[in-house]
């Protein structure tokens, strides 16, 4: 079924649009209707959080809650296991508010820490990676404190996490921001007592087009080979040798490899099943959270940090 849809859409649109979508992991084999919808908007200004569409929640939620989609490897799929896992995730979400955030957003995470003197520990930083599905979902925060780069990895459904607060909701140009480790420290420095910035309701998540400057070599990875958009000065550190090798290592044919993309994604039939199962609860949680936040903004002018 999915293949048929794929073929027909392939005839109508050019193959190039398959690569337009950056997010390979979350990409789904959407029907034609959805494709048109996505194609009309520009690539960067894609509304990831449009007004709630009750007829097709897949479009909205696969970016907001990526961990609800299972691992696409068919060897590990099992519908009952996935169902139990989703039920557990919803149970945890009923206890703690896990907000919508993306790679590039700035978060404040409070955990209960048996080692600390006050038994709680708060860390603020930019999310440089988000990965894993189900209860295994995790993210990495990075900050520079006292001129020392610090990174902490958290699990999203860890019962030790007391609160996750989004201080600035935005996206960056890349899927992973590992290059911040080799960038100048000011690009990953955030004050620990940052105030949360509240977006007006209904606006799409802004994309921060900042391009960082890298420190001179040596680097931790070969950034020049990764086709990064968020780095400005990568060319000035390259030698002729590096440019030649970058050309040799390019794999321009991979964007035409439909099978590879199919293996990396969850078919739209499976997705609609998953979202129809969890949509109601997630939507209710979201609405109640909005009500709460509205109340808070009426009572207090400046929301306090948790």
């Amino acid at each position: 079924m999915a293949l048929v849809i794929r073929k027909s859409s392939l005839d109508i649109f050019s193959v190039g649009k398959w690569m337009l979508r950056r997010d390979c992991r979350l990409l789904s084999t959407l029907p034609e209707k959805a494709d048109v919808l996505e194609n009309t908007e520009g690539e960067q200004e894609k509304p990831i959080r449009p007004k709630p569409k009750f007829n097709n929640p897949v479009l909205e939620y696969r970016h907001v809650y990526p961990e609800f989609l299972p691992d696409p490897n068919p060897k590990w799929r099992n519908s009952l296991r996935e169902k139990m896992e989703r039920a557990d995730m919803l149970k945890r979400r009923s206890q703690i508010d896990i907000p919508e955030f993306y790679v590039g957003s700035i978060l404040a995470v409070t955990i209960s820490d048996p080692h600390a003197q006050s038994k709680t520990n708060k860390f603020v930083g930019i999310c440089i990676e988000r990965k894993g599905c189900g209860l295994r979902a995790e993210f990495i925060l990075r900050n520079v404190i006292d001129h020392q780069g610090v990174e902490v990895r958290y699990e999203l459904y860890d019962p030790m996490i007391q609160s996750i607060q989004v201080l600035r909701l935005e996206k960056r140009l890349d899927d992973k921001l590992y290059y911040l480790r080799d960038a100048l420290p000011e690009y990953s420095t955030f004050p620990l007592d940052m105030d949360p910035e509240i977006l007006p309701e209904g606006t799409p998540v802004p994309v921060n087009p900042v391009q960082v400057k890298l420190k001179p070599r040596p680097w931790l990875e070969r950034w020049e080979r990764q086709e990064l958009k968020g780095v400005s000065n990568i060319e000035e550190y390259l030698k002729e040798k590096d440019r030649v090798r970058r050309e040799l290592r390019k794999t321009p044919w991979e964007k035409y490899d439909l099978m590879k993309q199919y293996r990396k994604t969850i078919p739209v039939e499976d997705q609609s099943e998953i979202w129809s199962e969890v949509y109601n609860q997630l939507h209710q949680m979201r609405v109640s959270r909005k009500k709460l936040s509205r109340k808070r903004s009426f009572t207090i002018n400046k929301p306090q940090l948790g």
Partner: protein
Amino acid sequence: MLKSLTSRLCAAAASRALHTTAPLQEVRLLTRLRVVDNSELGRRAMAEGKPPKVICVYNKKRVGLIGDRVMVAIKGQKKKGILVGLKQNQKVKVPKFDSNNIVLIDDNGTPLGTRIHVPIPTILRTILKERTHAKGADYTKLLGIATRFV
């Protein structure tokens, strides 16, 4: 001018991963560390661009983990120190740092400096308390001079 250039080159050579443990960023024999306390010796060593080298890691595996005691060669002297931050990938909720940090101590566990400039992980509190025995060295003095925990 020339001096600064050579020192920068030296630093680049030191941090360039020539050893096989680079992907793991392990602390083992001859790893260069960063002294993060304000002891006279450590400060001068870091300023001159001659960071201390590990010459022994005091555990069974000889690969330093957080809170392990190491012996370092620093400016021609042998000194002991405690690892207070690692570049290696850490467990969940344990911070990972951009450099391998060390605080110099003497044989009784008393730090040579009076302040630590950088944040240190809170898990160190538990680890150092476990390592401290009634008659041996008291490593918990290190926690007293820390300025910030993450």
